[in-house]
């Protein structure tokens, strides 16, 4: 092996990291703000992919427009779920895990009933079906798109949480719900908005994953555990998830380069356990994220 291939692995690691990250973004917002353990997150991702499929197949919407549209559709689903179920469970965080597991079953089977169990695919413009050479390294255009969208969303979230009034309110609620309420902040509304936002982010992830892989009712199940591990390792904060995904993505790429993909995953899981043993609060813990 030479330096060139290691460089290749590192570049790929950035891309893998962006995939881990975008899968975890929505969960970060939801878990970080409200402490809700949303097991239906994978199914939100799946819904995002199916929304894009629907728009593309029935209405002929161009792919790039499907991304924001999926955001809106899945955010609305998230909003409905929050109003109908989650808001009754905020003081029972472990119960949200069980209830949302039920939700995930319902969503998965509901989609199967509507669209059938055969896989669907998302068509993308020809330009996304090629690669770019960076010296000796190569990366596919679509991976760059995923990276770009992820970076954009992280930046937008940072702006939202640290530069707007809404962000101040969210952080106030996270610190102390009662105190925030006395300043006239409606924590119920904040939770509702963040849940919808988190769901919408999962929707965007789904629209992207549908291109990288496959659109199936069961596609979400493989993302939820890894996304959840990223959020907890990160400590429930945006920066934490970015760093956790970055490190994990690079590790997966580099370990897979030296050994094989399965063993790389094993090492990552073990390292996560060891890491949490010494830092159970995660990389960048946020007040209020822990219950």
């Amino acid at each position, binding site marked *: 092996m030479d330096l060139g291939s290691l460089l290749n692995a590192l570049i790929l690691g950035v891309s893998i990291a962006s995939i881990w990250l975008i899968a975890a973004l929505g969960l970060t917002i939801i878990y970080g703000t409200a402490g809700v353990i949303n097991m239906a997150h994978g199914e939100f991702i799946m819904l995002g992919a199916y929304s894009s499929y629907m728009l593309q197949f029935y209405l002929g919407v161009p792919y790039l427009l499907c991304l924001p549209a999926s955001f809106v559709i899945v955010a609305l689903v998230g909003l409905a779920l929050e109003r109908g179920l989650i808001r009754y469970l905020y003081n029972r965080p472990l119960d949200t895990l069980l209830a949302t597991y039920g939700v995930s079953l319902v969503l998965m089977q509901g989609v199967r009933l509507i669209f059938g169990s055969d896989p669907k695919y998302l068509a993308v413009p020809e330009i996304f079906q090629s690669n770019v050479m960076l010296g000796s390294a190569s990366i596919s255009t679509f991976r760059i798109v995923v990276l770009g969208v992820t970076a954009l969303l992280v930046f937008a979230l940072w702006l939202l949480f640290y530069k707007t009034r809404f962000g101040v309110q969210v952080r106030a609620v996270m610190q102390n719900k009662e105190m925030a309420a006395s300043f006239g902040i409606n924590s119920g509304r904040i939770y509702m908005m963040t849940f919808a936002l988190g769901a919408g982010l999962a929707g965007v992830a789904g629209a992207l994953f549908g291109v*990288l892989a496959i659109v199936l009712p069961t596609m979400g199940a493989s993302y939820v555990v890894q996304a959840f591990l990223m959020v907890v390792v990160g400590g429930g904060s945006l920066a934490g998830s970015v760093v956790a995904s970055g490190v994990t993505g690079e590790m997966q790429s580099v370990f897979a380069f030296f050994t094989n993909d399965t063993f790389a995953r094993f090492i990552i899981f073990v390292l996560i356990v060891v890491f949490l043993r010494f830092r159970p609060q995660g990389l960048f813990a946020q007040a209020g994220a822990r219950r």
Partner: protein
Amino acid sequence: MQFTRRNLLKTTAAASAALAAPHLWLPTASEAWGATLKKGEPIKVGLLFSLTGSLAVPEEDSTLVMQYAIEEINKAGGVAGVPIEPVIVDAKSDFAVYSEKAKELILREKVIALFGCYTSASRKAILPTVMQRDHLLYYPTCYEGAECTQNTICTGPLANQHSQDLIPFMVQQFGKRVFFVGSNYVWPKESNKNAKVWLQKAGGELLGEEYIPLGSSEFGPVLNKIREAKPDFIFSTVVGASDIAFHKQFKQEGFKADKMPIASLTTGEIETRAMGAEFGAGHFLSAPYFQTLDNPTNNKFVESFLKSKYGKNGTTHYNMEETYTSAYVFKAGFEKAAAAVGFENVTPRAIRDHSGGVRVEDNVSPEGLIWIDENNFNCWLKPKIGQCQADGTFKIVKAADNHVAPDPYSIYPDAGVCTKDGLKSPDGKIRKSVI
């Protein structure tokens, strides 16, 4: 071996006695089955496939085509004059449920045969039950071999049949340098061992061998390794959703099917439809059946199946066809057994014992004549090579001239030969039920 012997001696006498005769308790075939057929009552068979969960994608099609085949057989007068009644269950893509449902079908429903499973793992999950009740499983898809029981009949290609033509063909067409990619489980690994044998014979060179976790959709690291190795073609045994991700990312990473095609054992009509034909186009598949096979039987099969209420998914593919022919293998075996021992005395085991050599003729089998091996009860068939076209269908570029014999132990000559009484090792000992 010293250690083994000493340990065995240490085991209590009683346990050793039991060890020496592990199958003493087994009842006779009809006792084991616990039922008898009655003239005039339909013959019950079990359809053990997943209708929900991740395995539903291929297995739902299997259930549909099996129902279609049974309806067709019943319309034509049934089996030995008696209609077949399918008992359909949902294994929920959960291996524990496969085991439970197999027991339910065998012990409670008292079906005479099981048609089912798509993965080795689910087959392994139900085999103990099937073997203990001396029952019969029709396993209608390709598998790795290295199994020798008295209770299975397989209508798909074995690993030794699957790549026998494909590897030399690819080496000849594209070059000697090949990279193996597979899902991380038994079938791809065994298939690759067979492929290596053919590769060596064809003078090819293996550049690398990579296995991806089942269900994974991240092919970046593997594609990087492929890019560095610069093979002439890729031999793929990636299955399911991963396979689709593999083909998509292959193209997205700038690989071209005409420069470096993928020769696959799995990427058939369902997969190309699911990934979008442009991702499959130009790649190769080895299978005994393609929807585009041009013969009167297949043309009729495709037309009437797709028109029937079972053809809602719009495709036929090798796995469905292997399932379809398994129904006719059952019919032929049953009728042969009924003729030999009398209708009322037919048991699952009797069907199996009489299935050696049964044929499904050209005018029934869409892939052309097949027959069941008299020793190992796998299928003699003609593997074909198809190339995926821009519309997702396959163009047959090569068909075997002769039927290829199934050999479950082709790469393990030391293990012995699978006979109808069990695995016969080189020292002449016969062991029943080697799984």
